[in-house]
């Protein structure tokens, strides 16, 4: 589904990504973790072309992201993305947030788009809030709406960029529950997150990044039981023992 081959990216002389390669198969859930500044958010943003990269290749569902001939909008419409800061559209109601891209990008009728949006809103447990505006919802609720908005496009895979990092602690679980459910239904997912409990529960593989490199890319059992690199051991020790 997603093939990342030898991707490198730099800002001037600073290398953000160095020779990163991995694959995500259909139905797999991959957790990407690592210290801040390790390039994990940049890597996931390269997958749908939000960040350009200088060398290497990324193939999503058979389409090359870096190819200038690729219709990126068309590809992105099929790849769902959830952001750290939710990025709901504050000047639109929740219903319109859910419907707008379905109508403008996929060409669905308003009725169809609203219907689909409300079904997904119900799925994330927020049906009663359809008429409200994003500013009237809590962070956790906004992030669940953002997930529903991405799902409304019938994505072939989902990218999560630190979806719980901007949330108050008591709201983290409501978002992780939605993500867990999604994973169990077989959605292909790539998640940048520090939530190791989530990784243990649902991930197939864990990728550990440091200084722009993929340092570990292991099945989750192997990663948690016995991380090979010293850097990953230190990271896990810090993140798990407090």
């Amino acid at each position, binding site marked *: 589904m997603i093939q990342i081959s030898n991707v490198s990216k730099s800002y001037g002389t600073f290398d953000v990504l160095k020779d990163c390669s991995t694959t995500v198969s259909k139905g797999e859930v991959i957790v990407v973790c690592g210290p801040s500044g390790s390039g994990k958010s940049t890597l996931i943003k390269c997958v*749908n072309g*939000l960040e350009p990269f200088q060398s290497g290749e990324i193939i999503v569902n058979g389409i090359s992201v870096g190819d200038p001939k690729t219709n*990126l*909008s*068309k590809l*992105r*419409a*099929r*790849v*769902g*993305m959830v*952001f750290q*800061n939710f*990025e*709901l*559209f*504050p*000047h639109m109601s929740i219903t319109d947030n859910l419907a*707008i*891209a379905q109508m*403008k*990008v*996929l060409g669905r009728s308003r009725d169809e788009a609203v219907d689909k949006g409300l079904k997904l809103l119900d799925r994330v447990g927020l049906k009663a809030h359809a008429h409200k505006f994003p500013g009237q919802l809590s962070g956790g609720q906004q992030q669940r709406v953002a997930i529903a*908005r*991405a799902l409304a*496009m019938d994505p072939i895979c989902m990218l999560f960029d630190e979806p719980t990092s901007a949330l108050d602690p008591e709201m983290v679980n409501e978002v992780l529950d939605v993500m867990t459910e999604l994973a169990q239904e077989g959605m292909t997912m790539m998640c940048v997150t520090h939530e190791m409990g989530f990784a243990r529960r649902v991930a197939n593989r864990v990728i550990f990044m440091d200084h722009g490199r993929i340092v570990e890319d292991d099945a989750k059992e192997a990663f948690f039981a016995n991380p090979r690199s010293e850097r990953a051991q230190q990271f896990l020790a810090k993140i798990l023992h407090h």
Partner: protein
Amino acid sequence: MYEFDWSSIPGALPFLWDGMKISLEITLLSVVVGIVWGTLLAMMRLSSIKPLSLFAAGYVNLFRAVPLVMVLLWFFLIVPKFIEQLFNLPPGTDLRLTSAMIGFALFESAYYSEIIRAGIQSVPKGQMAACQALGMNYTQSMRLVILPQAFRNMIPLLLTQAIILFQDTSLVYVSALADFFGAAYKVGDRDGRLVEMLLFAGAVYFVLCFAASTLVKRLQKKYHPA
């Protein structure tokens, strides 16, 4: 001691009202064109396409670096000839209003584009990323998401600029056009009561503009209580 004599005002009111209509017409047209053309200029200036951003930067810097009176005079002298030829009008057709409007609109667009550019930049970058991630193209993202938020943030500034513009319309006197200020001047000159007429015109400008800016401040408090 100078004796004030206000007696020429009542009879001149219809003529002054006609002048006021011209002032308002110029203001309204310049605001509309200024916002539309200003928005395009702002988008060009923020564009990653070099020739577009250079053109917009040049345009804005040029118009912001020359006095409005001079621009109006240029347009007063050049535009009528140009339009006469373009539309095959008989020479001597009165195009003063048209050229004043064009001059104002083009000049004010430069100021509006700077306001709008700041407004666009005030919308968080993540909003554009979210639009792109949903598959929207640049035009859709701007029209549906970025500009509506930008304009909402800018409304007080746009209105304030419109009030300034209304005051600036008095500068069309250089083309002897009878806007409100020009009309007041003409009446005062005719009746030998220039001081009274100019005081009266000043008072009218003050009342209108002060009332409008008070209204803008109220609006601002209501929608952005900070």
